[in-house]
């Protein structure tokens, strides 16, 4: 075993140990398993939320897009800031309602607000549909880390199988407490690694940021600004909008807001979290530094750029530490996602059809579903040839469809009807499924339309359809309800 792989294996064992330690002396019910009680303070909630937000997506996907696409990658830096300023107003309202009604999951919120169990099942399924590509991208990242740091000894499919096994074992032994402790370790490591790489590589190879960007602009004219077509300004703005509205629509992000001790936490986070966001900048620098050093990585290969340039610059031991940071960065959110998806399927979908099922039975089914969801993710990982960033955007396309119904539910009486809300969400999701399965784009459907419209992110187009249907159906069903009474 080479030193890099040995370091990674060591960190994997350590994270298992932390998971076991965190569990010792506690009896876990489903509530603890999924939200860790309600006793986390500001620092822990901060780390927990950061741990879920900073993922393989940032580390490998962010650098991969800077390497492969240039300026369009900057969208990743934008949407978090906007989402945090929205969170200042949104999360306290959600938290207050969830705490008052003892809610556990995102679907519970919709069920309670709209008084519609059917809507809860739909919201749960949309959440799981969004989580699957998110889990797939963690697995892709883990696979890349394991196979790259093995220096060719382990193939990607084998690496993916090793990764999913580690993830499942980690989830089963740890639950949420393990994640919180490992999140502490992960945040420190990813900060050190990302900032270290982003500062070292541009200076080491180019003598500074300015010379590096000058060299890139010379070698690839136009690479550092948004193109006129394709990933244009219109794509950029609509994508930032989509992702900032969807930021807290992920079932795990939504439900993690329930774990705060007080609403004060969110107000403070809104000014602290954007600063944390700037870690992304260094990941971009790393991707840019790789462009002229490890050229020729095309398509999904661009996701390898961070590790390829690290292998060029450092000894295997250092590469091992970088890989270990990447491992934790995939393990923490990966375990959360896997756990969320299984819990949602057991609690919010299965239970709706078997209301008499006991707490123990539900808890058991949630655990049993972990390997099932994992296998589905492995199958998609091995069969799809998608880059990391588009995978996350696909997840956002799904979860952001919940945003209009959520906002309209916030007044003490929801402004939409359950039927309207469901029809809107189904329309949005159907649009996404149709366009992503058939690979149809607006530009191809309407080639004569201006690119300002055809470049719009399809998720935003789907959300507009969603809102139109939601309003029309709500008006129709409200009238009928009024007539009936």
């Amino acid at each position, binding site marked *: 075993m080479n030193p890099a792989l040995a370091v990674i294996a060591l960190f994997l064992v350590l994270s298992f140990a932390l998971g076991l330690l965190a569990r010792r002396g506690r009896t876990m019910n489903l509530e603890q398993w999924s939200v860790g009680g309600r006793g986390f303070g500001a620092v822990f909630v901060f780390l927990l939320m950061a741990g879920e937000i900073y993922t393989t997506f940032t580390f490998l996907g962010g650098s991969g897009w800077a390497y492969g696409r240039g*300026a369009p990658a900057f969208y990743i830096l934008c949407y*978090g*800031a906007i989402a945090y300023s929205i969170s200042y107003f949104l999360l306290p309202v959600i938290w207050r309602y969830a705490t008052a009604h003892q809610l556990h999951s995102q679907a519970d919120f919709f069920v309670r607000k709209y008084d519609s169990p059917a809507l809860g099942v739909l919201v749960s399924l949309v959440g799981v549909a969004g989580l699957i590509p998110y889990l797939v991208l963690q697995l892709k990242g883990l696979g890349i880390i394991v196979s790259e740091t093995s220096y060719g000894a382990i193939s990607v499919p084998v690496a993916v199988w090793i990764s999913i096994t580690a993830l499942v074992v980690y989830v089963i032994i740890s639950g949420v407490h393990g994640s919180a402790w490992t999140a502490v370790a992960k945040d420190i490591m990813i900060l050190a690694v990302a900032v270290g790489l982003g500062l070292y590589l541009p200076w080491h190879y180019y003598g500074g940021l300015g010379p590096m960007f000058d060299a890139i602009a010379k070698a690839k004219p136009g690479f550092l*600004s*948004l193109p006129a077509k394709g990933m244009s300004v219109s794509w950029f703005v609509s994508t*930032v909008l989509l992702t900032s509205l969807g930021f807290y629509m992920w079932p795990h992000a939504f439900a993690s807001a329930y774990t705060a001790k007080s609403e004060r936490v969110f107000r403070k986070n*809104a*000014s602290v979290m954007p600063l944390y966001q700037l870690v992304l900048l260094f990941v971009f620098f790393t991707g840019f530094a790789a462009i002229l050093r490890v050229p020729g990585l095309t398509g999904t290969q661009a996701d390898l750029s961070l590790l390829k340039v690290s292998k060029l610059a450092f000894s295997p031991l250092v590469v091992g530490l970088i890989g270990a940071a990447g491992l934790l960065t995939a393990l923490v959110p990966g375990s959360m996602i896997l756990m969320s998806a299984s819990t949602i399927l057991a609690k919010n979908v299965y239970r709706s059809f078997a209301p008499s099922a006991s707490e123990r039975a539900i808890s058991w089914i949630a655990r049993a579903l972990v390997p099932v969801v994992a296998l589905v993710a492995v199958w998609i990982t091995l069969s799809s040839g998608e880059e990391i960033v588009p995978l996350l955007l696909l997840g956002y396309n799904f979860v952001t469809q919940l945003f209009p119904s959520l906002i309209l539910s916030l007044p003490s009486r929801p402004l939409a009807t359950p039927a309207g809300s469901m029809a809107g969400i189904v329309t949005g999701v159907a649009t996404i499924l149709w366009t992503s399965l058939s690979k149809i784009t607006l530009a191809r459907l309407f080639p004569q339309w201006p690119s300002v419209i055809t470049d719009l992110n399809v998720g935003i187009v789907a959300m507009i359809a969603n809102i139109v249907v939601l309003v029309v159906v709500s008006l129709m069903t409200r009238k009928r309800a009024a007539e009936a009474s």
Partner: protein
Amino acid sequence: MRRVPPHRWLAAIPGLLILLGVPFANRVHARVLGMPFLLAWIVGCVLLTSIVMAIVDRLDERHAARDAGRSTRPERAA
């Protein structure tokens, strides 16, 4: 429904600077601190978000304190 206190609208500024400002920032080809202008613009907006949200929070607290002071029921002030 209560009116939104005017200072809360401040929170919209950084987001609008990103969504409406990027089309213009994209056309500037200067370097700021070595970075492409578009990237520097975005970094500026992110920093501004942090500052603006801290200000909104501070003003909200002052607002709440004033409301509590005005309240006729002293137990609410606690």
